[in-house]
């Protein structure tokens, strides 16, 4: 029963993805603006679902409960992290929307280039983004694999078919496919959350669940798990929350969804309402404790299967099928958006900058389409050919290194003070520091045995205090120090900074802004025209 419901729903979803090409069909999908950000025309509702579909992925819904199941309070870090991003996003996403709208930007790399006047900085940011995004796609597919193995559909074929279907629909429809799928996914997900709450209510209730879970954590040998944080664990928790929150503004896929919004108010309204997703995430995280007290055991020791296993044990068959489908689609949507973003980053900051400066809009769209296929099948190859744990390691490293682009893309939104040479030096130092620190982290198993000698986690010990700190934040601090000192030095030596092509007004522009103008160099093939007082004609693509 569960399998039938699951396969039917998943099949229906994939057909929906294909239908998306016809939905709000533009006059011409053969430009990167249409394919890559849905023509920047999504309204309130579509933007809202796409935001949830991208940021709250299956990996989140599978891995976060798996963490609370495994270690308790520390696993809850995703909730404060998600909350902190909302006030930050309210200010910064609106700014990036405006500047991107005025200059026709699609990715953080292009922004860094326009702000600091350096193609190499732009390419470096784009490259870091692509490298960090690839394993992120891979862990989404791992989550999907966990669902498949719980359902009992084993082997590599189902995964291959699902990825092929989604790749084809993305290839055809671009961002429209994941946008339409997000709506369907959220309906399924709402059902899952409500029925899970119902199941918990009909069971012993939260008081009993936490009593049992607390008792369980007290019996484990590890000092770091429990219902609340260990006193020495607080620094690690806070730095992890902070680092993860900042990285949201650096991943290319994170901005893609919001750039597709039709105006500034749509962005602001959506972010004001986005803490609803934090609440859903919080409820999912609490389900990890429920799974623990219900005696759910992961399949083959893979913690990712805890959630699917719980649905199987506690839900009626058809309802479990809906839950699997929700998780499955929640894996495929971010995979699609991430591959689109990584492809755009490649096309705009590398292909167009270095390989074919004269690329036309149709050519850009074509390159992005093929690049998105490469990203998805590359990620699939990683999890099929290599050990799954390898993909998780890469994702961990990706989360740390993407933080190193924060000075250029996030702080860059607030100020253009940094010099691009200093930013490049800071970014490279940050990347090297990240890798060196991560390499040294060991994973210690029960009884003090070293399980993994390298890349054993993302928290590094602080001396002998017993405290830990998130590596990404440490590397970012080194990065910022280098960037600031070098910028000061370059200013003292009176070396002229790169040209900032943005103006303060660009950061508050709205859709009806008659000053819409775009950088000729990164323009979608529109003819160059005078910029300034004489160019005050309405933008050709503003609604």
């Amino acid at each position: 029963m569960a399998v039938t419901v699951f396969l039917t729903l998943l099949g229906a979803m994939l057909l929906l993805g294909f239908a998306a090409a016809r939905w709000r069909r533009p006059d011409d999908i053969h430009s990167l603006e249409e394919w890559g950000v849905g023509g920047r025309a999504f309204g309130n509702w579509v933007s809202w679902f796409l935001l949830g579909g991208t940021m709250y992925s299956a990996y989140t819904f599978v891995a976060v409960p798996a963490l609370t199941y495994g270690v308790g309070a520390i696993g809850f870090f995703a909730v404060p992290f998600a909350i902190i991003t909302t006030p930050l996003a309210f200010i910064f996403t609106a700014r990036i929307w405006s500047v991107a709208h005025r200059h026709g930007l699609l990715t953080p790399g292009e922004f860094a280039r326009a702000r600091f006047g350096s193609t190499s900085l732009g390419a470096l940011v784009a490259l870091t983004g692509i490298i960090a995004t690839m394993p992120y796609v891979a862990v989404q597919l791992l989550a999907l694999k966990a669902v498949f193995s719980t359902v009992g559909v084993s082997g590599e074929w189902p995964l291959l078919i699902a990825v092929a279907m989604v790749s084809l629909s993305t290839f055809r429809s671009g961002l429209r496919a994941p946008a339409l799928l997000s709506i369907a996914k959220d309906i399924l997900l709402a059902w899952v959350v409500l029925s899970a709450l119902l199941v918990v209510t009909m069971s012993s209730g939260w008081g009993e669940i936490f009593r049992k879970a607390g008792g369980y954590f007290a019996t484990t040998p590890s000092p770091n798990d429990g219902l609340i944080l260990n006193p020495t664990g607080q620094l690690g928790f806070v730095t992890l929350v902070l680092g993860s929150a900042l990285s949201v503004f650096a991943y290319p896929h994170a901005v893609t969804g919001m750039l597709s919004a039709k105006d500034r108010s749509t962005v602001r309204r959506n972010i004001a309402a986005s803490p609803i997703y934090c609440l859903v995430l919080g409820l999912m995280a609490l389900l990890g404790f429920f799974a623990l007290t219900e005696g759910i055991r992961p399949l083959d020791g893979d913690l990712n299967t805890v959630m699917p296993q719980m649905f199987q044990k506690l839900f009626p068959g058809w309802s479990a099928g809906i839950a699997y489908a929700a998780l499955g689609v929640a894996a495929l949507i971010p995979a699609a958006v991430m591959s689109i973003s990584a492809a755009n980053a490649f096309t705009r900051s590398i292909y167009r900058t270095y390989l074919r400066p004269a690329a036309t809009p149709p050519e850009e769209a074509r390159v992005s389409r093929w690049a998105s296929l490469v990203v998805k099948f590359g990620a699939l190859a990683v999890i099929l050919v290599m050990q799954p744990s390898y993909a998780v390691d890469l994702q961990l490293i990706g989360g740390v290194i993407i933080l190193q682009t924060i000075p250029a893309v996030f702080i860059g939104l607030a100020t253009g003070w940094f010099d691009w040479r200093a930013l490049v030096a800071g970014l490279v130092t940050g990347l090297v520091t990240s890798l060196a620190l991560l390499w040294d982290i060991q994973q210690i198993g029960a009884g003090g045995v070293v399980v993994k000698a390298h890349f054993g986690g993302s928290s590094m010990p602080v001396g002998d205090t017993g405290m830990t700190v998130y590596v990404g934040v440490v590397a970012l601090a080194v990065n910022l120090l280098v960037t600031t000192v070098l910028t000061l030095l370059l200013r003292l030596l009176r070396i002229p900074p790169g040209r900032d092509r943005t103006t303060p007004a660009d950061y508050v522009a709205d859709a009806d802004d008659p000053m819409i103008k775009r950088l000729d160099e990164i323009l979608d093939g529109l003819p160059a025209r005078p910029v300034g007082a004489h160019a005050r004609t309405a933008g050709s693509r503003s609604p």
Partner: protein
Amino acid sequence: MARRARANRIWYLLLVPPAVAPLLTPLYNRIEPTVWGLPFFYWYQLMCAVLAMVLITVVHMATRERRHEWQ
């Protein structure tokens, strides 16, 4: 005009509490008091999400730009 811009900026201070509250672990790293059996650690953070929603909505309403104001 300038005074209004400054008044607008003050509204943005309301964004500070939801950004800071989830980071104050010494404040909320405790079990008691529980609500519906949920330890304080968990329901405090869920309340932070509600707080974020309310305050951001207030800021959005208060600082909404009138169209064509720049002209």
